[in-house]
């Protein structure tokens, strides 16, 4: 089986008047990959998708699909199919006509189309529903029809613009698995746009984290989560506690950060920033809530933090302790619930402990949701 068709973005700039929507994007998407662009709304990820599908000409740079430059080729001539955020099914056509619209355009006979529609309906578990109108289906079913309609065009690249955002949580989680399975089965390249880090992490081979038109980091889910390249990536993907400070000492790829509140703390420098931090630089250190644990009170050292507990909550699988942190942002500690008893610490100072390898340092920068 072929490895699928790759997509490359080369020095891609997209401007709307004075506004720069995409700034010098360079991405190589391997054929057959499930690739996600992850970022908050307005970060330019949908703009990139429109440039790949051909609805938008880049201001500078190139879009290559399977190595071919797509400059000047319209969306109806590109080997891509787009799934819209609102699905954009044709309301007046029956489900099977919707699915085989691309074949109708290509001039296929009604019999062939019907046959192909039935195959695809089987694949999306909607056998026998071809004669319904889209409005007669549920949200999840319409979702699958949109996927079938796109796949029927036999695209080399399937583009998905937040197609799950309109579904409720349960269905969304179910569709994640389903999308991933469909992608593995058909073996074509999927480019997925989302602001939901859970979707990106669970489905993607690789993820590009975007902020304000700039791609901050490209990597697989583990790299993005464990080894963020920027403060934005660290704070946008998953929950994270931030400690601000200055680099006070460097040793190899570890740095000692002198923070205002918690003294000197030791952490590892994220891979993308190796060799880039100097003593005296403003830095941010991130520790995940699950990487912090309670220590014997009074312990001191460069991997201990002391803070006053503001409130606690019991979430079921975890017990969460919130303490005062740097600059108004509280520190969250998640302790897995293994049946132990939890003491009430509210209002008391506690000492927290972490492994230096679980704390990551990046240069100070913009945080998500600030």
């Amino acid at each position: 089986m072929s490895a699928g068709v790759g997509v490359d973005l080369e020095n891609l700039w997209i401007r709307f008047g004075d506004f720069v929507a995409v700034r010098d994007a360079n991405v190589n998407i391997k054929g057959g990959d499930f690739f996600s662009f992850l970022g908050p709304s307005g970060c330019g990820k949908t703009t990139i998708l429109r440039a790949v599908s051909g609805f938008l000409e880049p201001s500078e740079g190139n879009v290559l699909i399977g190595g071919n430059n797509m400059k000047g080729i319209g969306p109806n001539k590109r080997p891509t199919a787009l799934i819209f955020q609102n699905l954009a099914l044709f309301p007046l056509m029956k489900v099977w006509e919707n699915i085989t619209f691309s074949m109708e355009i290509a001039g296929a006979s009604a019999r062939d189309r019907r046959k192909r529609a039935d195959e695809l309906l089987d694949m999306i578990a909607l056998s026998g529903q071809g004669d319904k109108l889209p409005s007669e289906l549920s949200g999840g079913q319409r979702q699958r029809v949109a996927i079938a309609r796109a796949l029927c065009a036999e695209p080399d690249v399937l583009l998905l613009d937040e197609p799950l955002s309109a579904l409720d949580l349960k269905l969304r989680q179910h569709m994640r698995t389903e999308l991933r399975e469909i992608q593995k089965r058909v073996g074509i390249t999927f480019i997925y746009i989302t602001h939901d880090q859970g979707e990106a992490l669970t489905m993607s081979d690789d993820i590009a984290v975007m902020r304000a038109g700039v791609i901050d980091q490209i990597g697989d889910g583990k790299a993005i989560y464990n080894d963020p390249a920027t403060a934005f990536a660290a704070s946008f993907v998953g929950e994270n506690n931030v400690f601000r400070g200055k680099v006070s000492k460097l040793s190899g790829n570890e740095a000692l950060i002198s923070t205002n509140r918690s003294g000197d703390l030791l952490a590892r420098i994220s891979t993308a920033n190796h060799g880039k931090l100097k003593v005296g630089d403003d830095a941010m250190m991130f520790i995940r809530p699950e990487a912090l644990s309670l220590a014997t009170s009074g312990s001191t050292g460069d991997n201990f933090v002391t803070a006053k507990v503001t409130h606690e909550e019991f979430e079921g699988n975890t017990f969460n302790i919130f303490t005062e942190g740097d600059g108004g942002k509280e520190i969250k500690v998640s302790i897995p619930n293994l049946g132990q008893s939890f003491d009430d610490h509210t209002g008391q100072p506690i000492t927290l402990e972490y492994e230096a390898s679980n704390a990551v340092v990046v240069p100070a920068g913009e945080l998500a949701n600030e």
Partner: protein
Amino acid sequence: MPGFLKEYYKRNGTMMGSVMLGLVLFWTVGLIILPQLSMLDFSFRPNLPPPEIGGPKDIYTLENYKYLIFGPEGGGQDYNAVDLAVFYRTLVAAIFVTLFNLLLCYPIAYYLGQNKGNHIRIFALMLIIPYWINEILRAFALRIIFGETGVLNTLLVGTGIFDTPFDFIRNDIALYAGLGYAYILLMIFPIYNVIESLDHNQIEAARDLGAPWWRIHWRVVIPYAKPGISSGCTMVFMLSAGALAAPQILGGPSSLWFTQLIYQQFNDNSDWPQGAAYAIVLLVTCILLVLAVMRLFKVNMGDIGK
């Protein structure tokens, strides 16, 4: 009291409900249905001088309808060829005006409906402003443009495209232009209304799936716009077939519009029963034609109100 009436009164109150219901009934029954019934009654009676009305000669008869088909009794011809020809030509011309308007207005309505911004509002305003000028003035303005020594002929002869002035009026071009122009808005706005609510993503989706622009219109936009198209076509057809001022002013001397015959019967001949019969025939034929076309294109009455 039936359930829906009770519900209606509960929602609007007895006083307000009665006023609104009364006004609607006055409008439909008093101003539309009763006068039409009276016309229908007229059309089946002979044209009698006032003293004989209600007398022994005042009986129901099909005379007036026969006249349209067979002409005056003992007129020496098998059919009323002149009036029937006018009737036929009026319907065909009204259909032509309707189709011409549709072809002209669909692209405009599509453009207005799928684009946003200030220039769209200005464009719409430019379409509306000519309607501030009354119908007669607009018709005479077109005469100035299309007349033998009019603007268009001066231009065409002056630039050497034509050797001699072209008679736009005798060839009914002025009439078609006048009728088309008069009802442009009635075609544009219903279509615009529907197309404005069409999700632009559907057009992009069709394009993304490989459709060229005309396939997108054929399969996605036009089916969606069908209620607007049919409501626009119905209005333009009905009003063109029933127009009087434009044919009077812009029609050639030899081409009569059926409404002009009706007008002559009522006004010049003072033959109200005959005029009523002609008017009823025109009305019923137009309604039947519209219903038949709606049936052909599978449009429901309910869609038209959208």
